């Protein structure tokens, strides 16, 4: 594996946010403080190596992602309803691309279905301080992505 996983995560997640949700991200140098109601979205993968890709994201940003993917206003009820589904799909697409970037196009990975659960402040702090995290800023909202490989 020649590529730096942190750089790959930053690039891939930024590209997918841009192409799927028309949102632009910037890498954050400092760990972001707890933004309030947040979600932990996670999915396992297995293949030549196994691990988990996960993402800590403010609830408000999830609705914006859903709205942008569906071409709705952020306060549209449908965007709020689809928020969990939209961020699970965002992570799913990111996972496929991260694995191709890191392992190349030959290996086959099995991707599990993403899960989503609420995250409190303590869980946020523990997550962002764990190894394998990169932090991004999207319209001043934080998004932290973590890749764990075993």
């Amino acid at each position, binding site marked *: 594996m020649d590529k730096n996983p942190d750089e790959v995560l930053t690039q891939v997640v930024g590209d*997918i946010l841009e*192409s*799927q949700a028309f949102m632009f991200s910037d890498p954050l140098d400092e760990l972001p403080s707890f933004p309030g109601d947040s979600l932990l979205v996670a999915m396992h993968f297995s293949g030549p190596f196994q691990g988990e890709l996960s993402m800590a994201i403010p609830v408000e940003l999830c609705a914006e992602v*859903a709205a942008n*993917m*569906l*071409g709705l206003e952020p306060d549209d009820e449908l965007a709020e309803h*689809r928020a969990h*589904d*939209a961020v*699970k*799909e965002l992570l*799913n*697409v990111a*996972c*496929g*691309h991260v*694995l*191709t970037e890191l392992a190349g*196009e*030959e*290996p*086959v*990975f*099995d*991707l*599990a*279905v993403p899960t989503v659960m609420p995250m409190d402040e303590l869980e946020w702090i523990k997550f962002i301080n764990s190894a394998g995290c990169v932090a991004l800023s999207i319209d001043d909202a934080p998004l932290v992505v973590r890749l764990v490989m075993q």
Partner: protein
Amino acid sequence: MALNILMVDDSETVRAVIAKTLKLADIPINELHQASNGEEALTLLKAHWIDLILCDINMPVMSGVEMIERLQEDEILKTIPIVVVSTEGSATRIEQLKSKGVRAYIRKPFTPEQIRGIVEDIIGALDGQES
């Protein structure tokens, strides 16, 4: 020729985006059906004639690969063109899918142009079969 299309994806958001993309691309649609996994799709296929299946791979209950294998066991259903729309980028996996009868592969995130190009190719092939 207006098509009966079946979208199979566990994400409601993706199904909504694909539906919107098909409309934007001016694909002639007669009926647009949805299923959230392979098992739902197989049930739906027993009740409706479908001209084209757009399906994901990683889904709960029954994956896209298992659904495709089940379709290949049926003399009629195996003739329906299948386009896989998935996040996976493995060339090995794509070749495996094509060997199971998959007509084309679109990697997420996709553009309306990609969907349009592939569906138009398939419509052309279907029209050719009819004439």
